[in-house]
């Protein structure tokens, strides 16, 4: 079992509501606390990425990330549309499945095709900062906001528009949902489900 890091987060309910709801002048502290929750060691995170092109054309990628004693195991299932040829009619989609084991910053084991190695190694992670959001409501263990700086929030250069984020949390995150429109117009959804 992993060693859990408990970060002391002391939030009086009323104060938290006041802080995240804009009733106090110290909102930055609250976002710092969200970042601290993100730094907790979770035993498992399930990330589901959904790309929606039209009502019947959806690609779903699922990554299950388990953290055990400093070793991260990623099981992934990635859907892609299949190309068609005159020789054969194929299913509409293909699914790539595999497993990667990461220790430190090194991928030490890969089993499966087209593992998203870049994604495993490159992401800098989410970052909660007040200046990244507008129309934010941070209260009662939840955050709902429009993201005005998608790249800053997501930690990568991103051309998406109309990004929104919603999250629920207690001492740790329960889930984070991010939606936006990709540069080609299709809709993208990221859903993180956290298990402490």
């Amino acid at each position: 079992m992993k060693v859990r890091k408990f970060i002391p987060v002391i939030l009086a309910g009323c104060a938290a509501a006041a802080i995240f709801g804009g009733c106090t002048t110290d909102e930055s502290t609250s976002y710092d606390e969200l970042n601290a929750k993100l730094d907790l060691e979770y035993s498992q995170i399930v990330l589901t990425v959904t790309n929606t092109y039209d009502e019947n054309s959806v690609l779903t990628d699922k990554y299950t990330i388990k953290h055990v004693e400093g070793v991260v195991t990623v099981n992934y299932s990635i859907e892609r549309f299949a190309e068609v040829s005159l020789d054969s009619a194929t299913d509409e989609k293909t699914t790539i499945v595999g497993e990667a084991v990461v220790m430190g910053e090194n991928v030490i084991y890969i089993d499966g095709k087209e593992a998203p190695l870049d994604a495993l190694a490159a992401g800098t992670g989410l970052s909660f900062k007040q200046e990244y959001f507008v129309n934010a409501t941070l209260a009662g263990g939840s955050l709902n906001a429009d993201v005005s700086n998608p790249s800053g929030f997501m930690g990568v250069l991103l051309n998406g528009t109309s990004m929104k984020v919603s999250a629920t949390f207690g001492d740790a995150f329960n889930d984070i949902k991010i939606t936006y429109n990709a540069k080609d117009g299709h809709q993208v959804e990221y859903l993180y489900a956290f298990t402490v």
Partner: protein
Amino acid sequence: MQKIFKSILSFCLAVAVCVSTAAVLGVTQHSVADAATVDTYYSKITASGGTQLLGQLHDLIVETHKTYTSYDDCKKYGPTTDPALDGTSGAVMEFYTHETIKKFVGGVGDWNREHVWCQSLSNGLWGQGGGGSDLHHIRPSESGLNSTRGNCKYGYAKDTGKEAWSRDNSKNDSKLGGWYIGTSIFEPLDNVKGDAARIVMYVYTHYNNASNVGGTKESAKTHGNLNFTNVISASNEAAAIKMLLEWNKLDPVDEIELYRNEAVYKIQGNRNPFIDNSSYADAIWGGGTVVDPPTPGPGPTPGPSDTLQSIRLNATSLNLAINDTYNLTVTPTPSNASASATWSTSDSSVATVSNGKITAKAAGTATITATSTANTSIKATATVTVRQTSSSTVTSGKTIINRDSFTNASSGYAFQTWKAKSGVEGTAFIYGGKEESMQFNIKQKSHYLASTTTLGTIKSITVKAAAGNSEDRPWQLLTSTTAYGTMENSNPSDGKDRGTKTVTESGVTWSIDGNDTYFALIYALDATSGAAYLDSIEVEYASGGSSGDTDKLEELLINPSEFELQAGDSTKLTVSAIPSTASAAVTWTSSNPSVATVSEDGTVTAHKAGTATITATSTVNSAITATATVTVTEEAFVSGSTNATAFHNAVAAINDGTLAEWHATISAAVKAYKALSASDKTEVSSDVEKLNSAISNYNDTVKAYNGAADDADKPALSGASRLI
């Protein structure tokens, strides 16, 4: 011999399907063999393989070869034994490319008679007679390809040789006939290899000495020693046989071969057994056994059926004014079926019809019916609405002739026709035209303006000089009860002389008795230089003109107001004005240009299935419009092959609405494609192209979608990576 009988019986059942299909299609001249004929023909074949079977077949096809055709007959029978797949009358299907060729011998692009077993490779057995004019042996070939084949043996040349193109070497894929190496080897396309092999085996079996093939009867014309290596590029006879058996297997018997085998049988009396049962080849030369022939299926019978399925009219709804006429025409489906029809009207007091020509008689509605003479149960109708025109009982009015009445004469003098908005027309000799001037140059002998049509008896004529650029000038007025016609080299001189008046900017009026209906206005100054510029000529009619403002448009009528077109077809719409003296000038628009477009002159061109509304908008009053509805259908597809029909329909059903629908409909078309025979694919080649295009577009979209999902910018695991 049970096996043979079983196979024959099986084949008979199979061809019975084709026979019934052909009957449905109305193909009566030639179809594939009927069961009884085949059964009887092979009733003497008892051997199961080897030389014994070869000998029996030799004797059979020699003995039954009752009519030896001449080389000229091969020309005569070409369109019968090898009809064009697209149904072009009198044309043939080229052997190597399957393209349609109509002209016989004359140059590249025409067809000639191809000795599949080259004359020069026949050990002198045939020239243009005997085996050299056997219809089972001779196939139509494009002259250029025929020349390329030359004296080449059949073999493999694709990898090392050159491409052999039909016609003008345009290298259109549909004209690729095979590959060749110098003058030694020619390789046909895969879908022709089996045809060629079965013809070679037939010739070998028929024209060999009986003793060479285990038979007892000699060909009545020519016979001798033939080896496959004569015509097959192979190191020895065994290798040649191996290649023939490969080709026989690679390209199975298709409906085209079955069709022509029966057609030739009806002419010569004998059959090509290697087409009737391709397993004979393996049983004789490959150590195999006779097996049931493959079921040919209800594939395409060469040449389209001419059985009428339906007819349609060039209009389904018309709006006519009294005395208007409109010509209806019949289009049959299939297009080569009879278009002959009888015509009737539901109300001859409203509209009459004769040979498709409708004449509007009185206000009301009538239904015009065309009934096919080929099949009286097949009909098509058009609804005619006859309108009462509002200007039929007018008593007086005016028309104005001005610069707009003339087309541009550019520079120099021009003899012109003119037309006032009211509809009155005439002729003039004038310098310059529309909006530039209405200049009558006095250096010219003929400088005048006269009318060739009328609205009624003329009450007065008022002429005004153009402001600012014309001195007052004398003009003479003539009036007549007959039109002035065209006079390019002299002034009008007939009619009553109404006197000469000086025309000023404020205008001058001739009041006349109202008995004449035509006028001529002549420049009356005898001078060597100078010009007269007119502003307008206003003609007042005592009767016959429209009441009030003659130019005022009340309504536009468009015809036809409803009609159908097949994709790729065009028709021209017409617009008329109410009152008829008003302008009918319009601009045209289409509500759905992807379905149908409309040109400036009202010609509608159909592009794909669907409906579109064509709108004509008056140029003098944009609030007045008229609309017509066009329904576009895909070109009717007629085939004897259920597989080809299914594929055609599947391609037509491809729907790119959503990616899932797109994938599903493309997949259905791909599955239908896999069921096509070689001849099916030839028949539906345009649909194959459409499917390939759809697949290409689909794959491009999928790549884009996948690429977007794989976009390196996306924060795939960014949230988690802080944990890693």
